[in-house]
């Protein structure tokens, strides 16, 4: 059994209200050493609120938030975390290298570990070629990478990334994923919020789906996916798609170019019937639903 010392960050029964809006409603969340937890949910579901409680930017109205068993605001706890927030205006007039050096210096108050060098940090974040550039002169994607660099300037044990890859091009996103995996291999835990389900699918060990301030599903990517029984059938067939849509066990049937795409909760029955009716059927594929389908399903249930 995993020891409790493995838990690096936790929310326990945490609630937070902003005026009339109950942004977070009794949420329990645990992040363990070396684990990537993805927080998913529609806009306004409470993802950013959950992170800001864990970071000590806000206090929960009820329940608790802690980092390494301490108050999130304790300096000793903050020496062990890094964060990339969703909205941060970094001073335009400082150079990238100066910004990294500044954040690096913050982590020097912790005598038990040395922060990364500016060079290493820049390389990990993919901003080595930007060190002499002023922050204000960078593109949106470059600025986002610099913010990532600031988050990893210390040798942190947990990273909070609030929509880290929004605005990044594919290449920059891949670089960031790679760095995230490297950090996790070193034992760093990650809490990630994202709009990109493929990001959660590619990175996360665990997924928590938030809707209206509550956790509506939590588990591994496979477990979340399994919450949705349906699978997707694709094939080229002469059977009329409108007719298929009327069959039992068929949730939907559409034409996608020459292919027919069917979503079903009992693929065996549907495939048998298809093959019976169309001996010429070919290019048959059956896919388990992805995280995207599961997500839509779960948040629909919660609404």
């Amino acid at each position, binding site marked *: 059994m995993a020891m409790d010392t493995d838990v690096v960050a936790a929310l326990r029964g945490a609630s937070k209200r902003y005026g009339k809006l109950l942004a977070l409603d009794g949420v329990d969340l645990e992040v363990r050493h070396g684990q990537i937890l993805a927080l998913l949910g529609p806009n306004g579901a409470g993802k950013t609120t959950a992170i*800001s409680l864990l*970071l*000590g*930017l*806000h206090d929960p109205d009820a329940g608790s938030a802690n980092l390494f068993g*301490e*108050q999130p*605001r*304790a*300096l*000793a706890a*903050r*020496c062990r*975390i*890094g*964060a990339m*927030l969703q*909205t*941060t*205006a*970094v*001073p335009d*007039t*400082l150079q990238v290298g*100066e910004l990294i*050096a*500044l*954040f690096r*210096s*913050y*982590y*020097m*108050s*912790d*005598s*038990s570990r040395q922060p990364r060098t500016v060079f290493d940090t820049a390389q990990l974040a993919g901003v080595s070629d930007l060190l002499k550039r*002023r922050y204000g002169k960078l593109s949106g994607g470059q600025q986002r990478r610099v*913010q990532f660099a*600031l988050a990893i*300037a*210390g040798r942190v044990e947990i990273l*909070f990334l609030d929509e880290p890859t929004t605005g990044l091009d594919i290449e920059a996103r891949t670089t960031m994923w790679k760095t995230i995996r490297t950090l996790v291999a070193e034992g760093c835990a990650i809490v990630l919020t994202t709009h990109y389900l493929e990001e959660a699918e590619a990175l996360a060990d665990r997924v928590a789906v938030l809707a209206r301030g509550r956790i509506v599903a939590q588990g591994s990517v496979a477990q979340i996916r399994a919450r949705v029984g349906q699978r997707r059938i694709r094939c080229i067939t002469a059977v009329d798609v409108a007719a298929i849509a009327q069959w039992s066990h068929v949730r939907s049937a559409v034409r996608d170019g020459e292919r027919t795409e069917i979503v079903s909760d009992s693929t065996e029955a549907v495939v048998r019937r298809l093959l019976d009716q169309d001996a010429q059927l070919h290019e048959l594929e059956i896919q388990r639903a992805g995280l995207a389908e599961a997500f839509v399903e779960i948040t629909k249930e919660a609404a």
Partner: protein
Amino acid sequence: MNAIAETRAIRVSGYRALPAYLLEARYEFLRLLRTPSFAVPTLSFPPLFFLLFGLLLNHGNAGAAHYLFATYSVFGVMAPSLFGFGVAVAIEREKGWLALKRVAPMPPGAYLAAKLAMAMLCAAIIYLILAAMAYALGGVRLPAAQWLVLGTVAVGGALPMCALGLIIGSRANASAAPAFVNLIYLPMSFLSGLWMPLSMLPHFLQQVAPLWPAWHLGQLALMTTGQATTGSVAGHLLWLGAFTVICFAIARRGLARAD
């Protein structure tokens, strides 16, 4: 800042925070250098005022130059303190830069110490310009000690003025902060007798003058240069000390409310 109040110094020793304090101050200075649109007006405004009102309009009036040199030294510290804290903190608080630094283990106080150092540096530069003008153009002659003590009053005046600015910076939103600062900066200078002796103003304004921190600073500056004043050095220092502490306490509560 609440984060500071709750800090537990477990593995964190003070001297290890020194690089962060130094870098924070250094980059604050670089930002100032790289933002001439803030630095140039801030540094040149008080000397230009002094040139116009202290030297040109009162040409040949040594008493006026003497008086205004002392009070403009105080006027000079107000802009960098009030704007540096009132406006800059409001912007950095609202745009999330302060939040990011508070999430990262920025040592308690590094942020404010850097900004305070910068306000003091600006005040010192302004004082040196004023002193050079007063000496060369206004015929002001003071014993060496008085030049120094007046400079100390001007630079030390950053403390209460920054504290006052911080109240605005910790509460006002970024777009309203400059208006609040201007609402304090110019009227308070006038009402504190920094532009002309209060004896030239209505009696009522003289009576309420002790309410303004700039008046206490101005009195200290005038005392330093051996001019007629009200109150005692200890009294003014005590008042300013208490004012600074109260403002910081109020501002701290404002900063603790994360928003």
